[in-house]
């Protein structure tokens, strides 16, 4: 209600009270004259001043009950306050129901109650997100610094009071009246600290989610049962919306925590990978260095001996061999540490495979190893870097070569799955297989079972495959050979590298096609 409305209402009420009082006074005068006219005429000699005195006393006595009567009538008939408040609050509950942000909900609630319904102060007490009690989220009519200081930890007297009252609206006077003097004193302090004389608890079933604290203007104040019922229903509506918002907020917080934990985990994993790599590099490079320097030191100490010249040759050979070994490590490391995208071009996977096989032909023919190729029909062009793909084939074939002895068989298949747009490369050997405990380690840097091996081949292969958004896995059973399956997504030259690999990484790695499983080996 606007101040202008209020003023109009007050003037109207005064006129009505005045008129009624006038009529009543005249009626009183007539009646008094009729009944006691003779008596008064005798006693006061018919003086009109006496009549006026009596009438005034009557008017003064009659004013308060009349005023009360009109106030009541105004409220009930002429200005149906409750129905207008109802409309406002109904609209408010609807707006609150679709608000998912807690501060927004709190501000909407307190400002509407404060500005539209003219409650002197309004505040919203809400369960804190960490769950260690209740805090005032928003308030109207008192300062931010004041309410921010207030904390209601679990078990505090105010919360206990709310819990004891259940869904009933608490009116300060009523609560205090039912308590002992000391308790009442304490609670008065509590209500004052909340700047409230009316508290609407917010319950959802048996869960207390908060409360709306109001300081009602004295004109509204003696609330009747209808008002209280109305506030209680309003409280129930707000409680439901508030609880949903709190649940969303909790979820949001949890989500953030999860994301933090995840990024921390990723960071740790990355560190571990770097640590692992650094440890491996140090170890791998220090061994050849130890051999080189050790042999040289021994040789230096033996230069006076007769056999010195023979020894020199032997040591020099060792040095050449060990330097090559150390250089190999750095070369392999460079292969995967390259951060910029290597230039990619249109190429045919089967020709890269053929080149790689011919590179190894001398070694394979020497050991009587057969390499069988099975390339699918109508293989589309692949967009990639020849060096990288050659490295992939080379590492897989070398790995197989080292696993099988003389007279072994290596089968390599390349197929294209049209539906999934995936190139599938399978490399199978009939070697002794990989023991189950090693199967998940084969792609770790520096993991090797051969004393001469670096343990970088499969690691580098995996890095390259990942760079193309593909996946690689090993399947093996002891005594039954090993199968490596690589799935590479078809690279559309129209789409930039990065996007293509991201798009295919999600779909590509999850694909499990029965044709590439162990049962259908090529």
């Amino acid at each position, binding site marked *: 209600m606007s101040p202008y409305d209020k003023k109009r209402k007050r003037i109207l009420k005064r006129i009505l009270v005045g008129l009624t009082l006038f009529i009543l006074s005249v009626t009183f005068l007539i009646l008094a004259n009729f009944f006691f006219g003779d008596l008064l005429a005798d006693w006061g000699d018919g003086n009109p001043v006496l009549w006026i005195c009596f009438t005034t006393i009557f008017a003064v006595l009659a004013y308060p009950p009349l005023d009360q009567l009109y106030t009541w009538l105004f409220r009930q008939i002429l200005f149906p306050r409750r129905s207008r408040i109802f409309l406002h609050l109904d609209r408010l509950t609807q707006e609150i129901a679709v608000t998912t942000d807690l501060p927004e909900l709190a501000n909407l609630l307190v400002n509407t109650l404060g500005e539209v319904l003219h409650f002197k102060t309004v505040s919203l007490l809400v369960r804190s997100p960490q769950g260690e009690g209740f805090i005032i989220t928003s308030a109207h009519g008192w300062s931010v610094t004041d309410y921010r200081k207030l904390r209601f930890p679990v078990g505090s007297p105010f919360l206990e009071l709310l819990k004891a009252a259940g869904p009933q609206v608490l009116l300060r006077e009523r609560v205090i009246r039912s308590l002992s003097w000391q308790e009442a004193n304490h609670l008065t302090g509590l209500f004052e600290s909340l700047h409230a004389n009316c508290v609407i608890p917010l319950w959802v079933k048996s869960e207390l989610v908060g409360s709306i604290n109001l300081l009602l203007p004295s004109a509204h104040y003696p609330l009747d049962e209808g008002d209280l019922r109305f506030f209680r229903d309003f409280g129930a509506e707000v409680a439901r919306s508030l609880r949903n918002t709190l649940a969303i907020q909790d979820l949001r917080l949890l989500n953030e925590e999860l994301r933090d934990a995840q990024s921390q985990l990723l960071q740790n994993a990355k560190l571990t990978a770097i640590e692992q790599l650094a*440890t491996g590099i140090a170890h791998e490079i*220090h061994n050849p*260095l*130890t051999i080189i320097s*050790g*042999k040289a*030191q021994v040789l230096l100490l033996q230069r006076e001996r007769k056999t010195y010249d023979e020894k020199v040759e032997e040591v020099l050979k060792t040095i050449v061999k*060990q330097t090559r070994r150390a250089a190999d490590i750095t070369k392999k490391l460079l292969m995967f540490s390259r951060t910029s995208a290597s230039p990619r071009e249109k190429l045919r996977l089967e020709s890269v495979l053929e080149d790689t096989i011919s590179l190894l032909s001398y070694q394979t023919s020497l050991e009587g190893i057969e390499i069988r190729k099975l390339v699918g029909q109508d293989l589309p062009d692949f967009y990639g870097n020849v060096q990288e793909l050659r490295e992939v084939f080379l590492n897989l074939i070398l790995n197989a070569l080292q696993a099988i002895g003389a007279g072994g068989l290596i089968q390599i298949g390349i197929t294209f799955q049209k539906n999934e747009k995936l190139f599938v490369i399978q490399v199978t050997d009939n070697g002794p297989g990989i023991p189950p405990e090693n199967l998940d380690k084969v792609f770790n840097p520096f993991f090797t079972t051969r004393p001469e091996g670096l343990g970088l081949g499969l690691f580098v292969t995996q890095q390259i495959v990942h760079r193309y958004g593909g996946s690689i896995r090993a399947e093996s059973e002891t005594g039954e050979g090993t199968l490596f399956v690589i799935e590479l997504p078809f690279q559309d030259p129209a789409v930039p590298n990065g996007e293509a690999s991201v798009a295919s990484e999600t779909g590509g790695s999850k694909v499990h096609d029965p044709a590439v499983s162990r049962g259908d080996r090529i």
Partner: protein
Amino acid sequence: MIKLLVVDDEAEICDFLKAFFSDRDFDVDVAVSGETAFQKVQDFRPHVVLLDIKMGKVDGISVLRQIKEKFPQTKVIMVTALETTEKIEEAMRYGADNYITKPLSLEYLEHDVREKIANLVVKP
């Protein structure tokens, strides 16, 4: 004569260490894996063991524990490629007498070995 056992899965490292210490009147034996190392200790009964930490299946730490359990008087010097690792702390906890890092300085190593056995009465 001081008996020295060199344990390293790199045969070339064993080779030159054997050559070096043999020249300096040590009685040297080698083991090229963790698996064979403890057997060598039992057979050869060395005064000092030069023990590589990172080896194939059985690493230096487990060999160290076996040695210190059965022959606590045997001095063990750990050899490692890495200085900053918990492995060294672990080795010291299990009673390793010292550690040296690769690449090795042979003269320093000899000094260290001699220092370790200085208190031992070595039978000729």
